[in-house]
């Protein structure tokens, strides 16, 4: 069947073609429906591809029929199919939840432009994940980044503008560093195809440019992924963005950069560069550990719920990087599993925050006092997802932290230090999560606060669906863990 064969490329083409069409739709409802429909279709394609990968292994697709080292190849394995599910799923959930929130918060008129940018962001992120060509990653990265800048700048306050400016500067530097790195590798190998690159790097005599390239690529992508200490752009960008955009960004944007980082460093450089593993580990592990503590510590003192969650993301990204920097199959699978679970919990948390902001018009903790009584269902969903963030048993967050601790135990004595840091960070997470819960449930509403009703059902349904997934994957952890373990095996087996 022709259509089935072309599924991989549809993942990018669908939102890319739909973006201008959505812009042309009149009113506020039609472009939203178009975006939801496309996200749904893309999600269906992602599910089909994931099943296909699980059944038959890696899918290779040659764009335009040009054979791979010369043409651009798409390449979908376990890891990329997991990421595709995240991207399209997050887009779908955020949009289903977001219609009233977007109508209220987004400043750009006509609002159809916003949905156009949204679909471009989806196309770019999906492209970054499935392409097998290093330069193509750069192009898709810039498509998604440019669209993301627009999405954040649509935020309700003028803080959005200064936050976006900072993000543009740092994001461009990140992309530029990546480009320099790709250029240096191209110079030494004469190829841009990732699989081909891995092969040819073996034969390179002078490794100095390749080491420089590894440095440039790693730092550039760390910037894009907002890994501590290169996260400066993120908290403001998340806080100032429309709540719906924050859901989407928190769930997948930084994770896609992290995906490319892992793919490049572990898939391409690791098998071909001697000593790269030690450098990678020694460079990233301290950052990951400091991120886990510092991110949580700053989150404790934040007064704005969105910024609090953003700093908690800095800490949680640290867990993922820690898993990757252990360089063992167990660590890698724990990292990938946490990448998936963290997307689930952060999406649920930001969806709940979106509902709160929709009703309260503010994400300041002080304004949200008493929310537990006025919006019990929303806060209950928030609490569930927050428990998952802390890592309470029976939630998805527990599973990934459990595997991370198991992976750390393999490291011997040093592992106990890692476990101590993991536990300390979780305890700090309890504190900042408790601050929110205490404010919402045990503080009286401030004097003169507006009367607030529970969020309507169409906001509650997606929030609870994602909060429910946190519990579901906490109980039935085999499916995502199996996928993560296979993805880790792919990466560490040397097959890019």
């Amino acid at each position, binding site marked *: 069947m022709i259509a089935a064969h072309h599924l991989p490329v549809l993942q990018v083409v669908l939102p890319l073609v739909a973006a201008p069409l959505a812009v042309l739709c009149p009113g506020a409802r039609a472009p939203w429906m178009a975006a939801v429909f496309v996200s749904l279709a893309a999600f269906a394609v992602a599910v089909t591809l994931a099943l296909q990968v699980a059944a038959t292994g890696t899918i290779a697709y040659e764009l335009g029929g040009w054979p791979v080292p010369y043409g651009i190849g798409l390449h979908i394995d376990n890891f990329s199919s997991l990421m595709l599910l995240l991207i399209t799923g997050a887009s779908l959930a955020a949009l289903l939840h977001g219609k009233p929130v977007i109508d209220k918060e987004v400043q750009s008129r006509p609002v159809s432009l916003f949905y156009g940018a949204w679909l471009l962001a989806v196309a770019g992120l999906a492209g970054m994940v499935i392409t097998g060509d290093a330069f193509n990653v750069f192009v898709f990265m810039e498509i998604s980044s440019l669209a993301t800048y627009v999405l954040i*700048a649509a935020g309700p306050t*003028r803080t959005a503008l*200064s936050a976006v400016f900072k993000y543009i500067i740092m994001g461009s530097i990140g992309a530029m560093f990546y480009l*320099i790195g790709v*250029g240096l590798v191209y110079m030494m190998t004469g190829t841009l195809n990732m699989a081909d690159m891995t092969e040819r790097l073996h034969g390179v005599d002078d490794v100095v440019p390749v080491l420089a390239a590894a440095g440039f690529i790693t730092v550039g992508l760390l910037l894009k992924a907002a890994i501590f200490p290169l996260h400066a752009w993120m908290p403001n960008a998340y806080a100032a963005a429309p709540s719906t955009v924050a859901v989407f960004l928190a769930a997948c944007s930084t994770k896609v950069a992290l995906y490319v980082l892992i793919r490049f460093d572990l898939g391409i450089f690791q098998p071909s560069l001697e000593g790269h593993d030690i450098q990678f580990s020694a460079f990233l592990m301290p950052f990951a550990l400091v991120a886990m503590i510092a991110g949580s510590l700053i989150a404790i003192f934040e007064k704005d719920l969105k910024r609090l969650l953003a700093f908690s993301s800095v800490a949680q990204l640290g867990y993922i990087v820690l898993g990757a920097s252990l360089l063992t199959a167990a660590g890698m699978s724990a990292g990938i599993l946490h990448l998936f679970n963290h997307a689930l919990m952060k999406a649920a948390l930001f969806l709940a925050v979106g509902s709160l902001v929709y009703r309260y018009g503010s994400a300041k903790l002080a304004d949200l006092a008493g929310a537990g009584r006025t919006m019990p269902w929303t806060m209950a969903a928030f609490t569930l997802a927050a428990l998952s963030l802390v890592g309470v048993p029976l939630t998805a967050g527990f599973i990934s932290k459990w595997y991370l601790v198991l992976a750390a135990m393999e490291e011997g004595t040093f592992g106990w230090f890692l476990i101590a840091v993991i536990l300390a960070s979780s305890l700090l997470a309890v504190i900042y999560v408790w601050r929110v819960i205490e404010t919402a449930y045990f503080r009286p509403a401030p004097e003169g606060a507006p009367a607030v009703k529970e969020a309507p059902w169409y906001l509650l349904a997606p929030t609870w669906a994602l909060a429910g997934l946190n519990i579901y994957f906490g109980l039935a952890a085999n499916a995502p863990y199996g996928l993560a373990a296979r993805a880790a095996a792919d990466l560490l087996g040397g097959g890019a």
Partner: protein
Amino acid sequence: MAWLGILNYWIFVLLLMTGMYAIVAKGNLIKKLIGLGICQSAVFLLFISMGKVVGGTAPILDGSDRAYSSPLPQVLILTAIVVGISTMALALAVVVRIKESFGSIEEADVYGKEAEA
């Protein structure tokens, strides 16, 4: 004078550092963007110069046996230039809106007003 042989790389480093300096040290948002532009040009030059083969000509097959320069980096950079222009246009548009809502394009003023609000 071995370093003269890799002069193009020195120019790349110099331009990149100049741009970075402007991004970090200048408070004016437009000047920061100009710094970003200089950085991007540095990357373009890096790519284009690595495709050059000494004595090589344009890659047009005419039956004779000659050395050709690699056209691929130039093609790649054509894409990167388009991307750079888009980024710059978007960033300048953001600066215009910052000027409209903050009344200034000096970094200190903008963040100062933000802290007040």
